[in-house]
Protein backbone atom coordinates (compact mmCIF):
# COMPACT_ATOMS: atom_id res chain seq x y z
CA UNK A 1 0.00 0.00 0.00
CA UNK A 2 2.68 2.45 1.08
CA UNK A 3 4.72 1.44 -1.95
CA UNK A 4 1.96 2.40 -4.30
CA UNK A 5 1.62 5.80 -2.68
CA UNK A 6 5.38 6.26 -2.90
CA UNK A 7 5.34 5.29 -6.57
CA UNK A 8 2.59 7.80 -7.22
CA UNK A 9 4.51 10.56 -5.53
CA UNK A 10 7.59 9.70 -7.53
CA UNK A 11 5.60 9.71 -10.74
CA UNK A 12 4.09 13.04 -9.82
CA UNK A 13 7.51 14.47 -9.15
CA UNK A 14 8.69 13.25 -12.49
CA UNK A 15 5.84 14.92 -14.43
CA UNK A 16 6.40 18.11 -12.45
CA UNK A 17 10.03 18.05 -13.50
CA UNK A 18 9.04 17.51 -17.12
CA UNK A 19 6.67 20.50 -17.02
CA UNK A 20 9.32 22.69 -15.44
CA UNK A 21 11.81 21.61 -18.07
CA UNK A 22 9.36 22.43 -20.82
CA UNK A 23 8.75 25.87 -19.37
CA UNK A 24 12.48 26.42 -19.15
CA UNK A 25 12.91 25.40 -22.76
CA UNK A 26 10.14 27.73 -23.81
CA UNK A 27 11.67 30.62 -21.92
CA UNK A 28 15.08 30.00 -23.41
CA UNK A 29 13.78 29.04 -26.81
CA UNK A 30 13.61 32.62 -28.07
CA UNK A 31 12.05 33.79 -31.30
CA UNK A 32 11.84 30.55 -33.25
CA UNK A 33 9.76 28.80 -30.58
CA UNK A 34 7.71 31.95 -30.11
CA UNK A 35 6.79 32.09 -33.76
CA UNK A 36 5.49 28.54 -33.69
CA UNK A 37 3.43 28.78 -30.50
CA UNK A 38 2.46 32.41 -30.87
CA UNK A 39 2.59 33.49 -34.50
CA UNK A 40 2.17 37.18 -35.30
CA UNK A 41 -1.51 37.94 -35.96
CA UNK A 42 -1.55 41.69 -36.17
CA UNK A 43 1.32 43.86 -37.24
CA UNK A 44 1.87 47.53 -37.94
CA UNK A 45 4.82 48.49 -40.11
CA UNK A 46 6.08 52.04 -39.88
CA UNK A 47 2.63 53.50 -39.24
CA UNK A 48 2.69 57.30 -39.25
CA UNK A 49 -0.32 59.48 -38.53
CA UNK A 50 -0.20 63.21 -39.07
CA UNK A 51 -2.86 65.77 -38.33
CA UNK A 52 -1.90 68.78 -40.38
CA UNK A 53 1.64 69.52 -39.29
CA UNK A 54 1.44 67.47 -36.10
CA UNK A 55 2.84 63.96 -36.15
CA UNK A 56 0.79 62.01 -33.61
CA UNK A 57 2.34 58.64 -34.38
CA UNK A 58 5.77 58.35 -35.95
CA UNK A 59 6.81 55.14 -37.70
CA UNK A 60 5.35 52.80 -35.12
CA UNK A 61 5.96 49.12 -35.81
CA UNK A 62 4.43 46.67 -33.38
CA UNK A 63 3.66 42.97 -33.49
CA UNK A 64 0.76 41.31 -31.72
CA UNK A 65 1.24 37.58 -31.19
CA UNK A 66 -1.55 35.05 -31.07
CA UNK A 67 -2.73 34.03 -27.63
CA UNK A 68 -0.73 36.70 -25.80
CA UNK A 69 -1.47 40.02 -24.20
CA UNK A 70 0.46 42.79 -25.89
CA UNK A 71 0.40 46.17 -24.18
CA UNK A 72 0.88 49.66 -25.48
CA UNK A 73 1.91 52.15 -22.81
CA UNK A 74 3.28 55.64 -22.66
CA UNK A 75 2.66 59.00 -21.02
CA UNK A 76 -0.50 60.97 -21.83
CA UNK A 77 -0.54 62.19 -25.41
CA UNK A 78 2.04 59.64 -26.55
CA UNK A 79 -0.22 58.53 -29.42
CA UNK A 80 -1.44 55.21 -28.04
CA UNK A 81 -5.11 55.75 -28.75
CA UNK A 82 -4.26 57.34 -32.11
CA UNK A 83 -2.39 54.20 -33.10
CA UNK A 84 -5.37 52.16 -31.90
CA UNK A 85 -7.68 54.25 -34.02
CA UNK A 86 -5.47 53.72 -37.04
CA UNK A 87 -5.59 49.97 -36.54
CA UNK A 88 -9.37 49.92 -36.06
CA UNK A 89 -10.12 52.16 -39.02
CA UNK A 90 -11.17 55.37 -37.29
CA UNK A 91 -8.15 57.10 -38.83
CA UNK A 92 -6.38 56.22 -42.03
CA UNK A 93 -2.61 56.14 -41.48
CA UNK A 94 -0.70 58.81 -43.38
CA UNK A 95 1.83 56.14 -44.27
CA UNK A 96 2.74 52.63 -43.22
CA UNK A 97 0.98 49.28 -43.22
CA UNK A 98 -1.43 47.47 -40.93
CA UNK A 99 -1.54 43.72 -41.48
CA UNK A 100 -3.89 41.12 -40.04
CA UNK A 101 -2.59 37.66 -40.90
CA UNK A 102 -0.85 39.22 -43.87
CA UNK A 103 -4.01 40.97 -45.11
CA UNK A 104 -3.67 44.72 -45.58
CA UNK A 105 -6.07 46.73 -43.44
CA UNK A 106 -4.80 50.27 -43.85
CA UNK A 107 -7.39 52.49 -45.52
CA UNK A 108 -10.26 50.16 -44.73
CA UNK A 109 -13.26 51.49 -42.86
CA UNK A 110 -14.12 50.57 -39.30
CA UNK A 111 -16.89 48.12 -40.14
CA UNK A 112 -14.68 46.32 -42.67
CA UNK A 113 -11.91 45.96 -40.13
CA UNK A 114 -14.36 44.55 -37.61
CA UNK A 115 -15.49 42.08 -40.24
CA UNK A 116 -11.87 41.15 -40.97
CA UNK A 117 -11.45 40.17 -37.31
CA UNK A 118 -10.44 43.11 -35.15
CA UNK A 119 -12.81 44.26 -32.48
CA UNK A 120 -12.36 47.01 -29.93
CA UNK A 121 -13.53 48.83 -26.85
CA UNK A 122 -13.34 52.56 -26.29
CA UNK A 123 -11.55 54.83 -23.85
CA UNK A 124 -14.77 56.79 -23.36
CA UNK A 125 -17.61 54.31 -23.00
CA UNK A 126 -19.45 53.99 -26.28
CA UNK A 127 -22.39 51.71 -25.60
CA UNK A 128 -25.79 51.75 -27.27
CA UNK A 129 -27.29 53.19 -24.12
CA UNK A 130 -31.00 52.73 -24.62
CA UNK A 131 -30.67 49.26 -26.12
CA UNK A 132 -30.78 46.39 -23.66
CA UNK A 133 -27.57 44.84 -22.39
CA UNK A 134 -28.36 41.70 -24.40
CA UNK A 135 -29.03 43.65 -27.60
CA UNK A 136 -25.69 45.43 -27.21
CA UNK A 137 -23.94 42.07 -27.37
CA UNK A 138 -26.12 41.07 -30.33
CA UNK A 139 -25.02 44.18 -32.24
CA UNK A 140 -21.48 43.01 -31.49
CA UNK A 141 -22.33 39.85 -33.48
CA UNK A 142 -23.50 41.88 -36.46
CA UNK A 143 -20.84 40.75 -38.91
CA UNK A 144 -21.17 37.11 -37.89
CA UNK A 145 -24.92 36.88 -38.54
CA UNK A 146 -26.14 36.08 -42.02
CA UNK A 147 -29.72 37.33 -42.13
CA UNK A 148 -30.25 40.21 -44.56
CA UNK A 149 -32.97 42.79 -45.17
CA UNK A 150 -35.27 40.43 -47.08
CA UNK A 151 -35.11 37.58 -44.59
CA UNK A 152 -35.65 40.16 -41.83
CA UNK A 153 -38.63 41.70 -43.66
CA UNK A 154 -40.35 38.35 -44.16
CA UNK A 155 -39.23 37.05 -40.76
CA UNK A 156 -38.11 33.81 -42.43
CA UNK A 157 -37.65 30.64 -40.46
CA UNK A 158 -33.90 30.79 -41.00
CA UNK A 159 -33.78 34.33 -39.62
CA UNK A 160 -35.81 33.37 -36.55
CA UNK A 161 -33.57 30.40 -35.87
CA UNK A 162 -30.43 32.46 -36.27
CA UNK A 163 -31.85 35.19 -34.03
CA UNK A 164 -32.76 32.71 -31.29
CA UNK A 165 -29.28 31.19 -31.50
CA UNK A 166 -27.64 34.62 -31.35
CA UNK A 167 -29.77 35.56 -28.36
CA UNK A 168 -28.65 32.42 -26.53
CA UNK A 169 -25.02 33.01 -27.40
CA UNK A 170 -25.25 36.64 -26.28
CA UNK A 171 -26.71 35.44 -23.00
CA UNK A 172 -23.78 33.06 -22.58
CA UNK A 173 -21.41 36.00 -23.03
CA UNK A 174 -23.30 37.96 -20.37
CA UNK A 175 -23.06 35.02 -18.00
CA UNK A 176 -19.33 34.91 -18.66
CA UNK A 177 -18.88 38.40 -17.21
CA UNK A 178 -21.72 38.11 -14.70
CA UNK A 179 -24.10 40.52 -16.40
CA UNK A 180 -26.82 37.97 -17.17
CA UNK A 181 -29.19 39.34 -14.56
CA UNK A 182 -29.14 42.70 -16.34
CA UNK A 183 -29.76 41.18 -19.79
CA UNK A 184 -33.00 43.10 -20.35
CA UNK A 185 -32.03 46.38 -18.69
CA UNK A 186 -30.96 49.35 -20.77
CA UNK A 187 -27.17 49.41 -21.09
CA UNK A 188 -27.10 53.03 -19.88
CA UNK A 189 -28.48 51.97 -16.50
CA UNK A 190 -25.45 49.83 -15.64
CA UNK A 191 -22.77 51.06 -13.27
CA UNK A 192 -19.55 52.37 -14.80
CA UNK A 193 -17.51 49.24 -14.16
CA UNK A 194 -20.26 47.00 -15.53
CA UNK A 195 -20.50 49.16 -18.65
CA UNK A 196 -16.80 48.53 -19.22
CA UNK A 197 -17.36 44.79 -18.91
CA UNK A 198 -20.26 45.01 -21.37
CA UNK A 199 -18.00 46.80 -23.86
CA UNK A 200 -15.51 43.96 -23.59
CA UNK A 201 -18.06 41.21 -24.25
CA UNK A 202 -19.70 43.24 -27.00
CA UNK A 203 -16.28 43.30 -28.63
CA UNK A 204 -15.73 39.59 -28.07
CA UNK A 205 -19.13 38.69 -29.49
CA UNK A 206 -17.81 39.07 -33.04
CA UNK A 207 -15.27 36.34 -32.23
CA UNK A 208 -12.32 38.54 -33.23
CA UNK A 209 -8.78 37.46 -34.02
CA UNK A 210 -7.53 40.38 -31.96
CA UNK A 211 -9.45 42.50 -29.48
CA UNK A 212 -8.20 46.01 -28.80
CA UNK A 213 -8.90 47.23 -25.29
CA UNK A 214 -8.53 50.98 -24.85
CA UNK A 215 -7.98 51.67 -21.14
CA UNK A 216 -10.43 49.07 -19.85
CA UNK A 217 -9.54 49.79 -16.22
CA UNK A 218 -10.17 53.53 -16.42
CA UNK A 219 -12.64 54.56 -13.73
CA UNK A 220 -12.71 51.12 -12.10
CA UNK A 221 -12.24 50.71 -8.37
CA UNK A 222 -9.57 48.36 -7.00
CA UNK A 223 -11.93 45.39 -6.64
CA UNK A 224 -13.15 45.82 -10.19
CA UNK A 225 -9.55 46.04 -11.35
CA UNK A 226 -8.75 42.71 -9.72
CA UNK A 227 -11.78 41.19 -11.41
CA UNK A 228 -10.68 42.67 -14.73
CA UNK A 229 -7.24 41.16 -14.25
CA UNK A 230 -8.78 37.72 -13.80
CA UNK A 231 -11.21 38.27 -16.66
CA UNK A 232 -8.46 39.18 -19.13
CA UNK A 233 -6.58 36.01 -18.22
CA UNK A 234 -9.77 34.02 -18.75
CA UNK A 235 -10.28 35.63 -22.15
CA UNK A 236 -6.72 34.70 -23.03
CA UNK A 237 -7.36 31.11 -21.99
CA UNK A 238 -10.29 30.99 -24.40
CA UNK A 239 -7.77 31.49 -27.17
CA UNK A 240 -8.26 35.19 -27.85
CA UNK A 241 -5.47 37.67 -28.51
CA UNK A 242 -5.40 41.01 -26.74
CA UNK A 243 -3.82 44.35 -27.53
CA UNK A 244 -4.29 46.70 -24.61
CA UNK A 245 -3.69 50.37 -23.87
CA UNK A 246 -3.71 51.08 -20.16
CA UNK A 247 -2.45 53.58 -17.64
CA UNK A 248 -2.63 51.29 -14.65
CA UNK A 249 0.97 50.06 -14.49
CA UNK A 250 0.29 47.46 -11.83
CA UNK A 251 -2.30 45.83 -14.06
CA UNK A 252 -0.12 46.09 -17.16
CA UNK A 253 3.01 44.64 -15.54
CA UNK A 254 0.92 41.85 -14.09
CA UNK A 255 -0.89 40.68 -17.19
CA UNK A 256 1.19 41.64 -20.23
CA UNK A 257 3.40 39.22 -22.12
CA UNK A 258 5.03 41.91 -24.20
CA UNK A 259 5.05 45.70 -23.92
CA UNK A 260 5.62 48.52 -26.37
CA UNK A 261 6.34 51.99 -24.99
CA UNK A 262 5.31 54.99 -27.06
CA UNK A 263 6.78 58.41 -26.32
CA UNK A 264 5.88 61.50 -28.35
CA UNK A 265 4.45 59.28 -31.05
CA UNK A 266 7.56 57.16 -31.54
CA UNK A 267 8.47 53.77 -30.15
CA UNK A 268 10.76 54.23 -27.17
CA UNK A 269 11.22 50.66 -26.02
CA UNK A 270 9.79 47.16 -26.26
CA UNK A 271 10.19 43.99 -24.27
CA UNK A 272 8.85 41.86 -21.48
CA UNK A 273 7.48 43.60 -18.38
CA UNK A 274 10.76 42.94 -16.54
CA UNK A 275 12.82 44.45 -19.34
CA UNK A 276 10.55 47.50 -19.54
CA UNK A 277 10.66 48.07 -15.81
CA UNK A 278 14.45 48.04 -15.90
CA UNK A 279 14.77 50.21 -19.00
CA UNK A 280 16.36 53.57 -18.06
CA UNK A 281 14.81 55.37 -21.08
CA UNK A 282 11.33 54.34 -20.00
CA UNK A 283 11.90 55.42 -16.44
CA UNK A 284 13.22 58.78 -17.63
CA UNK A 285 10.26 59.25 -19.96
CA UNK A 286 7.80 58.57 -17.19
CA UNK A 287 9.52 60.61 -14.51
CA UNK A 288 10.35 63.45 -16.84
CA UNK A 289 7.36 65.62 -16.16
CA UNK A 290 4.47 63.16 -16.22
CA UNK A 291 2.24 62.07 -13.38
CA UNK A 292 2.38 58.39 -14.17
CA UNK A 293 4.76 56.35 -12.07
CA UNK A 294 5.89 52.84 -12.77
Amino acid at each position, binding site marked *: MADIVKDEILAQEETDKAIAKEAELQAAGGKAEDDKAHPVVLETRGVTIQFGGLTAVDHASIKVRKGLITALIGPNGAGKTTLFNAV*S*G*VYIPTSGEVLLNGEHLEGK*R*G*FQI*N*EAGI*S*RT*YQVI*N*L*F*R*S*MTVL*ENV*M*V*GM*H*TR*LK*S*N*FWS*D*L*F*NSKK*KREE*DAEAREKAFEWLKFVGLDEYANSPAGSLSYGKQRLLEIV*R*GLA*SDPQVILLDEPAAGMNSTEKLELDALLKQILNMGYTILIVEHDMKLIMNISDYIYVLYHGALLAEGTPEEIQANPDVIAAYLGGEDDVI
Partner: protein
Amino acid sequence: MKTNSKKKILPLIIGAVILLALPFVAQMITGNDYWVLILCTMLIYVIAVSGLDILFGYSGQISLGHASFYVIAAYTTGLLNNYFNIPLFITIPCGAILAALLGAALAYPASRLKFHFLSLATVAFGEITYYFLYTSPGGFTNDYKGINIRSIPFLEGSYTKWYFWLLLWAIIFVVAKIFIVNSRTGRAFIAIRENTHAADGMGVNVQKYKILAFAISAFYVGFAGTMYAHLYKYISPETARQKQSVLFLTMMLFGGSGSIVGSMIGVVIIEILLELIRPLQEYQMLLYGILLLIVIIALPGGIVGGVRDVMADRAKRKLQKEGEGGAQNG
Protein backbone atom coordinates in the same frame (compact mmCIF):
# COMPACT_ATOMS: atom_id res chain seq x y z
CA MET B 1 -47.18 29.39 -21.37
CA LYS B 2 -50.82 28.62 -22.17
CA THR B 3 -52.21 31.39 -19.97
CA ASN B 4 -49.62 33.72 -21.41
CA SER B 5 -50.75 33.17 -25.00
CA LYS B 6 -54.39 33.38 -23.88
CA LYS B 7 -53.68 36.72 -22.27
CA LYS B 8 -52.19 37.94 -25.51
CA ILE B 9 -54.99 36.63 -27.70
CA LEU B 10 -57.91 38.23 -25.81
CA PRO B 11 -56.95 41.88 -26.39
CA LEU B 12 -56.11 40.97 -29.98
CA ILE B 13 -59.65 39.64 -30.51
CA ILE B 14 -61.20 42.71 -28.87
CA GLY B 15 -59.01 44.97 -31.00
CA ALA B 16 -59.98 43.10 -34.18
CA VAL B 17 -63.69 43.35 -33.37
CA ILE B 18 -63.40 47.09 -32.73
CA LEU B 19 -61.47 47.64 -35.97
CA LEU B 20 -64.02 45.64 -37.95
CA ALA B 21 -67.03 47.35 -36.40
CA LEU B 22 -65.60 50.89 -36.49
CA PRO B 23 -66.80 52.05 -39.93
CA PHE B 24 -70.32 50.74 -39.30
CA VAL B 25 -70.48 52.40 -35.88
CA ALA B 26 -69.21 55.69 -37.36
CA GLN B 27 -71.87 55.49 -40.06
CA MET B 28 -74.62 54.72 -37.56
CA ILE B 29 -73.73 57.58 -35.25
CA THR B 30 -73.22 60.30 -37.87
CA GLY B 31 -75.61 59.00 -40.48
CA ASN B 32 -73.13 59.58 -43.31
CA ASP B 33 -69.82 58.41 -44.77
CA TYR B 34 -67.68 61.33 -43.69
CA TRP B 35 -66.08 59.76 -40.65
CA VAL B 36 -65.43 56.55 -42.59
CA LEU B 37 -63.38 58.67 -44.95
CA ILE B 38 -61.55 60.10 -41.96
CA LEU B 39 -60.87 56.56 -40.73
CA CYS B 40 -59.47 55.73 -44.17
CA THR B 41 -57.22 58.79 -43.99
CA MET B 42 -56.03 57.68 -40.56
CA LEU B 43 -55.05 54.25 -41.93
CA ILE B 44 -53.12 55.91 -44.75
CA TYR B 45 -51.36 58.14 -42.24
CA VAL B 46 -50.57 55.14 -40.03
CA ILE B 47 -48.61 53.65 -42.94
CA ALA B 48 -46.84 56.94 -43.69
CA VAL B 49 -46.01 57.83 -40.10
CA SER B 50 -44.82 54.27 -39.35
CA GLY B 51 -42.46 54.67 -42.28
CA LEU B 52 -41.18 58.02 -41.06
CA ASP B 53 -40.66 56.45 -37.65
CA ILE B 54 -38.39 53.75 -39.10
CA LEU B 55 -36.18 56.59 -40.33
CA PHE B 56 -36.39 58.97 -37.38
CA GLY B 57 -37.36 56.84 -34.40
CA TYR B 58 -35.17 53.86 -35.18
CA SER B 59 -32.23 54.96 -37.33
CA GLY B 60 -32.05 58.48 -35.88
CA GLN B 61 -32.15 60.43 -39.14
CA ILE B 62 -34.52 63.32 -39.65
CA SER B 63 -36.52 64.20 -42.74
CA LEU B 64 -38.55 67.35 -43.12
CA GLY B 65 -39.34 66.51 -46.72
CA HIS B 66 -41.19 63.22 -46.48
CA ALA B 67 -44.32 64.66 -48.09
CA SER B 68 -42.22 64.66 -51.29
CA PHE B 69 -42.14 60.88 -51.38
CA TYR B 70 -45.86 60.82 -50.63
CA VAL B 71 -46.63 63.11 -53.54
CA ILE B 72 -44.08 61.72 -55.99
CA ALA B 73 -45.55 58.22 -55.59
CA ALA B 74 -49.07 59.63 -55.93
CA TYR B 75 -48.20 61.44 -59.17
CA THR B 76 -46.37 58.38 -60.49
CA THR B 77 -49.34 56.07 -60.15
CA GLY B 78 -51.77 58.76 -61.30
CA LEU B 79 -49.84 59.87 -64.38
CA LEU B 80 -48.87 56.35 -65.50
CA ASN B 81 -52.51 55.35 -65.27
CA ASN B 82 -53.86 58.53 -66.88
CA TYR B 83 -51.42 58.74 -69.79
CA PHE B 84 -50.66 55.12 -70.59
CA ASN B 85 -53.66 53.33 -69.12
CA ILE B 86 -51.37 51.00 -67.20
CA PRO B 87 -53.44 49.04 -64.65
CA LEU B 88 -53.28 50.28 -61.09
CA PHE B 89 -51.88 47.04 -59.63
CA ILE B 90 -48.73 47.87 -61.61
CA THR B 91 -48.67 51.66 -61.21
CA ILE B 92 -49.16 51.61 -57.42
CA PRO B 93 -46.03 49.51 -56.72
CA CYS B 94 -44.22 51.60 -59.34
CA GLY B 95 -45.00 54.74 -57.34
CA ALA B 96 -43.84 53.25 -54.05
CA ILE B 97 -40.69 51.79 -55.61
CA LEU B 98 -39.81 55.09 -57.30
CA ALA B 99 -40.22 56.81 -53.91
CA ALA B 100 -37.86 54.23 -52.35
CA LEU B 101 -35.28 54.69 -55.11
CA LEU B 102 -35.41 58.47 -54.75
CA GLY B 103 -35.13 58.03 -51.00
CA ALA B 104 -31.97 55.96 -51.48
CA ALA B 105 -30.61 58.48 -53.98
CA LEU B 106 -31.22 61.33 -51.56
CA ALA B 107 -29.73 59.37 -48.67
CA TYR B 108 -26.54 58.50 -50.55
CA PRO B 109 -25.06 61.99 -50.20
CA ALA B 110 -27.22 62.94 -47.22
CA SER B 111 -26.04 60.01 -45.07
CA ARG B 112 -22.78 61.85 -44.46
CA LEU B 113 -24.57 64.94 -43.16
CA LYS B 114 -25.01 65.76 -39.51
CA PHE B 115 -28.53 65.90 -38.11
CA HIS B 116 -29.31 69.60 -38.64
CA PHE B 117 -27.75 69.71 -42.10
CA LEU B 118 -29.71 66.61 -43.05
CA SER B 119 -32.91 68.35 -42.01
CA LEU B 120 -32.02 71.31 -44.26
CA ALA B 121 -31.24 68.99 -47.17
CA THR B 122 -34.63 67.29 -46.82
CA VAL B 123 -36.42 70.65 -46.62
CA ALA B 124 -34.69 71.58 -49.87
CA PHE B 125 -35.74 68.26 -51.41
CA GLY B 126 -39.36 69.00 -50.48
CA GLU B 127 -39.21 72.45 -52.04
CA ILE B 128 -37.62 71.10 -55.22
CA THR B 129 -40.40 68.53 -55.55
CA TYR B 130 -43.04 71.20 -55.03
CA TYR B 131 -41.66 73.60 -57.62
CA PHE B 132 -41.00 70.82 -60.12
CA LEU B 133 -44.60 69.64 -59.94
CA TYR B 134 -45.85 73.23 -59.90
CA THR B 135 -44.10 74.19 -63.13
CA SER B 136 -43.11 70.94 -64.81
CA PRO B 137 -41.43 70.77 -68.23
CA GLY B 138 -44.19 70.75 -70.84
CA GLY B 139 -46.75 70.89 -68.05
CA PHE B 140 -47.05 67.09 -67.91
CA THR B 141 -48.02 67.27 -64.23
CA ASN B 142 -50.79 69.77 -65.00
CA ASP B 143 -48.86 72.21 -62.81
CA TYR B 144 -50.62 74.02 -59.97
CA LYS B 145 -54.03 72.64 -60.94
CA GLY B 146 -53.07 69.14 -59.84
CA ILE B 147 -54.33 65.97 -61.52
CA ASN B 148 -57.48 63.95 -61.28
CA ILE B 149 -56.84 60.31 -60.55
CA ARG B 150 -59.02 57.23 -60.92
CA SER B 151 -60.19 55.30 -57.92
CA ILE B 152 -59.30 51.65 -57.55
CA PRO B 153 -62.15 50.02 -59.57
CA PHE B 154 -63.37 47.43 -57.06
CA LEU B 155 -63.39 49.96 -54.23
CA GLU B 156 -65.00 52.82 -56.08
CA GLY B 157 -67.94 54.48 -54.42
CA SER B 158 -67.72 52.80 -51.03
CA TYR B 159 -65.58 54.24 -48.25
CA THR B 160 -66.38 51.16 -46.18
CA LYS B 161 -64.74 48.96 -48.81
CA TRP B 162 -61.81 51.37 -48.87
CA TYR B 163 -61.61 51.13 -45.11
CA PHE B 164 -61.16 47.36 -45.12
CA TRP B 165 -58.72 47.50 -48.03
CA LEU B 166 -56.59 50.08 -46.19
CA LEU B 167 -56.92 48.23 -42.90
CA LEU B 168 -55.40 45.18 -44.59
CA TRP B 169 -52.47 47.22 -45.90
CA ALA B 170 -51.95 49.09 -42.66
CA ILE B 171 -51.69 45.75 -40.86
CA ILE B 172 -49.24 44.41 -43.46
CA PHE B 173 -47.03 47.50 -43.19
CA VAL B 174 -47.12 47.60 -39.40
CA VAL B 175 -46.29 43.89 -39.14
CA ALA B 176 -43.43 44.41 -41.60
CA LYS B 177 -42.19 47.25 -39.39
CA ILE B 178 -42.33 44.97 -36.34
CA PHE B 179 -40.29 42.34 -38.20
CA ILE B 180 -37.74 44.85 -39.45
CA VAL B 181 -37.07 46.60 -36.15
CA ASN B 182 -36.76 43.30 -34.29
CA SER B 183 -34.04 41.90 -36.49
CA ARG B 184 -30.38 42.26 -37.34
CA THR B 185 -31.32 45.12 -39.65
CA GLY B 186 -33.37 46.83 -36.94
CA ARG B 187 -30.60 46.43 -34.38
CA ALA B 188 -28.20 48.03 -36.84
CA PHE B 189 -30.61 50.98 -37.25
CA ILE B 190 -30.92 51.48 -33.50
CA ALA B 191 -27.17 51.10 -33.00
CA ILE B 192 -26.61 53.89 -35.53
CA ARG B 193 -29.14 56.07 -33.72
CA GLU B 194 -27.55 55.38 -30.36
CA ASN B 195 -23.90 55.70 -31.27
CA THR B 196 -22.82 55.95 -34.90
CA HIS B 197 -19.15 55.70 -34.00
CA ALA B 198 -19.54 52.49 -32.03
CA ALA B 199 -21.89 51.01 -34.63
CA ASP B 200 -19.11 51.39 -37.20
CA GLY B 201 -16.64 49.81 -34.78
CA MET B 202 -18.97 46.83 -34.27
CA GLY B 203 -19.07 46.10 -37.98
CA VAL B 204 -22.26 47.93 -38.99
CA ASN B 205 -21.92 49.52 -42.42
CA VAL B 206 -23.37 52.84 -41.31
CA GLN B 207 -23.82 54.39 -44.74
CA LYS B 208 -25.51 51.29 -46.15
CA TYR B 209 -27.99 51.07 -43.29
CA LYS B 210 -28.73 54.80 -43.36
CA ILE B 211 -29.58 54.51 -47.05
CA LEU B 212 -31.64 51.39 -46.40
CA ALA B 213 -33.62 53.17 -43.67
CA PHE B 214 -34.30 56.06 -46.01
CA ALA B 215 -35.45 53.73 -48.79
CA ILE B 216 -37.74 51.68 -46.53
CA SER B 217 -39.18 54.84 -45.04
CA ALA B 218 -39.78 56.40 -48.47
CA PHE B 219 -41.43 53.16 -49.63
CA TYR B 220 -43.90 53.31 -46.73
CA VAL B 221 -44.69 56.97 -47.29
CA GLY B 222 -44.84 56.46 -51.06
CA PHE B 223 -47.32 53.61 -50.76
CA ALA B 224 -49.43 55.74 -48.43
CA GLY B 225 -49.30 58.52 -51.04
CA THR B 226 -50.61 56.27 -53.81
CA MET B 227 -53.48 55.18 -51.59
CA TYR B 228 -54.26 58.80 -50.72
CA ALA B 229 -54.33 59.75 -54.40
CA HIS B 230 -56.67 56.95 -55.41
CA LEU B 231 -58.93 57.46 -52.41
CA TYR B 232 -59.35 61.22 -52.93
CA LYS B 233 -59.02 60.85 -56.74
CA TYR B 234 -56.94 64.01 -56.83
CA ILE B 235 -53.44 65.19 -56.01
CA SER B 236 -51.85 68.62 -56.30
CA PRO B 237 -48.38 70.03 -55.65
CA GLU B 238 -49.75 71.70 -52.51
CA THR B 239 -49.51 68.35 -50.71
CA ALA B 240 -45.74 68.33 -51.22
CA ARG B 241 -45.36 71.46 -49.11
CA GLN B 242 -43.90 71.74 -45.64
CA LYS B 243 -47.34 71.50 -44.02
CA GLN B 244 -47.77 67.83 -44.92
CA SER B 245 -44.22 66.87 -43.88
CA VAL B 246 -44.67 68.68 -40.58
CA LEU B 247 -48.00 66.92 -40.08
CA PHE B 248 -46.29 63.50 -40.36
CA LEU B 249 -43.55 64.64 -38.01
CA THR B 250 -46.01 66.03 -35.47
CA MET B 251 -48.03 62.81 -35.48
CA MET B 252 -44.90 60.72 -34.97
CA LEU B 253 -43.44 62.87 -32.20
CA PHE B 254 -46.78 63.34 -30.44
CA GLY B 255 -47.50 59.60 -30.34
CA GLY B 256 -43.91 58.71 -29.50
CA SER B 257 -41.08 57.95 -31.89
CA GLY B 258 -39.21 54.66 -31.96
CA SER B 259 -42.39 52.80 -31.14
CA ILE B 260 -44.92 50.69 -33.04
CA VAL B 261 -48.05 51.95 -31.25
CA GLY B 262 -46.70 55.50 -30.89
CA SER B 263 -47.17 56.18 -34.60
CA MET B 264 -50.75 54.90 -34.46
CA ILE B 265 -51.72 56.88 -31.36
CA GLY B 266 -50.24 60.05 -32.81
CA VAL B 267 -52.16 59.65 -36.06
CA VAL B 268 -55.51 58.98 -34.35
CA ILE B 269 -55.30 61.81 -31.82
CA ILE B 270 -54.02 64.47 -34.19
CA GLU B 271 -56.39 63.52 -36.99
CA ILE B 272 -59.33 63.82 -34.57
CA LEU B 273 -58.01 67.18 -33.30
CA LEU B 274 -57.70 68.41 -36.88
CA GLU B 275 -61.29 67.44 -37.60
CA LEU B 276 -62.48 69.21 -34.47
CA ILE B 277 -60.80 72.46 -35.50
CA ARG B 278 -61.67 72.15 -39.17
CA PRO B 279 -63.63 75.45 -39.08
CA LEU B 280 -60.37 77.18 -38.10
CA GLN B 281 -58.38 75.74 -40.96
CA GLU B 282 -55.96 78.63 -41.23
CA TYR B 283 -54.80 77.83 -37.73
CA GLN B 284 -53.72 74.25 -38.51
CA MET B 285 -50.04 75.16 -38.62
CA LEU B 286 -50.48 76.98 -35.33
CA LEU B 287 -51.90 73.82 -33.83
CA TYR B 288 -48.93 71.76 -35.10
CA GLY B 289 -46.61 74.34 -33.60
CA ILE B 290 -48.29 74.26 -30.22
CA LEU B 291 -48.45 70.47 -30.18
CA LEU B 292 -44.77 70.19 -31.13
CA LEU B 293 -43.83 72.62 -28.37
CA ILE B 294 -45.85 70.63 -25.84
CA VAL B 295 -44.17 67.42 -26.94
CA ILE B 296 -40.66 68.86 -26.95
CA ILE B 297 -40.97 70.57 -23.58
CA ALA B 298 -43.32 68.37 -21.57
CA LEU B 299 -43.32 64.98 -23.29
CA PRO B 300 -40.01 64.37 -25.04
CA GLY B 301 -40.91 60.71 -25.64
CA GLY B 302 -44.41 61.49 -26.91
CA ILE B 303 -47.44 59.83 -25.36
CA VAL B 304 -45.85 56.40 -25.44
CA GLY B 305 -42.67 57.71 -23.85
CA GLY B 306 -44.68 59.45 -21.14
CA VAL B 307 -46.63 56.30 -20.30
CA ARG B 308 -43.40 54.31 -20.29
CA ASP B 309 -41.80 56.77 -17.85
CA VAL B 310 -44.78 56.63 -15.49
CA MET B 311 -44.74 52.83 -15.55
CA ALA B 312 -40.99 52.64 -14.98
CA ASP B 313 -41.36 55.07 -12.09
CA ARG B 314 -44.07 52.94 -10.54
CA ALA B 315 -42.04 49.75 -10.92
CA LYS B 316 -39.08 51.49 -9.29
CA ARG B 317 -41.18 52.68 -6.36
CA LYS B 318 -42.67 49.23 -5.93
CA LEU B 319 -39.20 47.72 -5.89
CA GLN B 320 -38.05 50.30 -3.35
CA LYS B 321 -41.04 49.61 -1.14
CA GLU B 322 -40.42 45.89 -1.31
CA GLY B 323 -36.77 46.51 -0.56
CA GLU B 324 -37.66 48.60 2.48
CA GLY B 325 -40.19 46.01 3.62
CA GLY B 326 -37.58 43.27 3.24
CA ALA B 327 -35.04 45.30 5.18
CA GLN B 328 -37.51 45.86 8.01
CA ASN B 329 -38.40 42.20 8.13
CA GLY B 330 -34.72 41.23 8.18
